[in-house]
């Protein structure tokens, strides 16, 4: 479980996050949704300490991450897996070295054991046998999936995915959503997924947080997001004219 308490974050004079408090539950896929540029990635980076918060606390299973020193943070971070919006693969390493990197850094596993774990992770993201490719030789969607494989290679307690399925075809996107959901349940992880893909929301959203203008605008589950009357949310959920029409039709038939 990750608790976020009253986070504020500004860059220079521009305040991005305003007093955000919420709880990301264990064993669930927690979604952060919202339009582009509203501060979703900044929120995630504040939670893992890549940006220092101005005020507020982030608490990992009762431990206050914000007040920790570098070494204590490093211990928590070894239990965090993160997929970055731009994948952030190490471009001097091939796929196998990328995925196995945290294992070589932090475990005493033999190279055979590491290889086994890497193959297992690659299999889970449907990339069996791509071990020797360089990131530059992979497509954007493949890079995303390699990033996920790397994020889960250490069996993290906390998993952050910044737009895991942007740039993927619908079928692979569903596969990735399913994978994230499965491993969350399997290992009882606290998973935080940032997305603007409504399909994912419907598919895996158990706890959905809607960020608007840097504030937590709304929180609920996937059922209530469809029915809520909050105008900013309906604007987000039913973004296209076509969807708006469908919504209107449904409402008309109801009344």
């Amino acid at each position, binding site marked *: 479980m990750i608790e976020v308490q009253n986070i504020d974050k500004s860059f220079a004079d521009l305040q991005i996050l305003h007093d955000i408090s919420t709880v990301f539950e264990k064993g669930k896929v927690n979604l952060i949704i919202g339009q582009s540029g509203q501060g979703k990635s900044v929120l995630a980076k504040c939670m*893992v300490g890549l940006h220092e918060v101005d005020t507020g606390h982030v608490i990992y299973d009762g431990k206050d991450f914000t007040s920790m020193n570098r070494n204590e943070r*490093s211990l928590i971070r070894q239990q965090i897996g993160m997929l*970055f919006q731009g994948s952030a693969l190490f471009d001097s390493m091939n796929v196998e070295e990328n995925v196995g990197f945290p294992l070589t*850094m932090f475990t005493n596993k033999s190279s055979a054991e590491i290889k086994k774990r890497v193959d297992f992770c690659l299999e889970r993201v449907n990339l069996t046998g791509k071990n020797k490719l360089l990131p530059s030789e992979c497509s954007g969607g493949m890079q995303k999936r390699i990033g996920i494989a790397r994020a889960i290679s250490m069996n993290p307690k906390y998993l952050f995915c910044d737009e895991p399925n942007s740039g993927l075809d619908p079928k692979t996107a569903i596969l990735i959503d399913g994978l994230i959901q499965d491993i969350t349940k399997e290992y009882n992880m606290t998973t935080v997924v940032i997305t603007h893909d409504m399909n994912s929301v419907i598919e895996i959203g158990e706890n959905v947080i809607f960020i608007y203008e840097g504030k937590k605008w709304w929180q609920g589950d996937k059922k209530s997001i469809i029915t809520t009357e909050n105008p900013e949310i309906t604007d987000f959920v039913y973004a296209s004219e076509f969807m708006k029409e469908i919504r209107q039709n449904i409402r008309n038939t109801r009344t």
Partner: protein
Amino acid sequence: MWRRVISELEIIGVSSLFIVGLMSLFMGGVIALNTAYQLTTPLLPDYTVGYITQQSTFLEFSPTVMSLILAGKVGSNIASEIGTMRVTEQIDALEIMGVNSLNYLVLPKIIAAMLFFPILIICSMALSLIGGWLALQVSGLINTEVYVMGIRSFFDPFHITYALIKAVCFAFLIVSVSSYYGYYVRGGSLDVGKASTQAIVTSSVVILMSNFILTKLLLF
């Protein structure tokens, strides 16, 4: 860690051997020719050419000029590599895994450079003297024995130590200055390019200034 140092040795050091060698050959040739050209007075013996080539090579040209060249090659390389890692969030990815990114990225480079720069400088000295000899042979100005005699006369082993001390200091400066510019770059690929230019300019200035200080400290 040591695996990283070895791969950095290759990137920073071995790949610079060729350019350092080539430049040193020509540099030595030019020093020898220039000296010979200016030695018009019969009062000075011919072996002075060898002596002066040796002195200028050992004291300044090999350690300082080569370091300036390496500041261009190695410095821009390091700044753009680390800078790219910064703007593509690779450094964030390291941090998030609990890796101390600054140590992980910069330390092996500093160690590798401080180990390999002296080797490069020694190669440069040897090749510069050979370059001088070749130039004199081609132009038929002074014969081999006289040149070698000039090199060996007044030879002071401390000059080698002096050059190597400089090389090690400059290695440290080049790598730390360029890593600094790369590590703290903000923005996109355009800013990485700017950082790498800045890295070259600053490390060159720092080299020349510390060269002055070192020369003063070590020779007087």
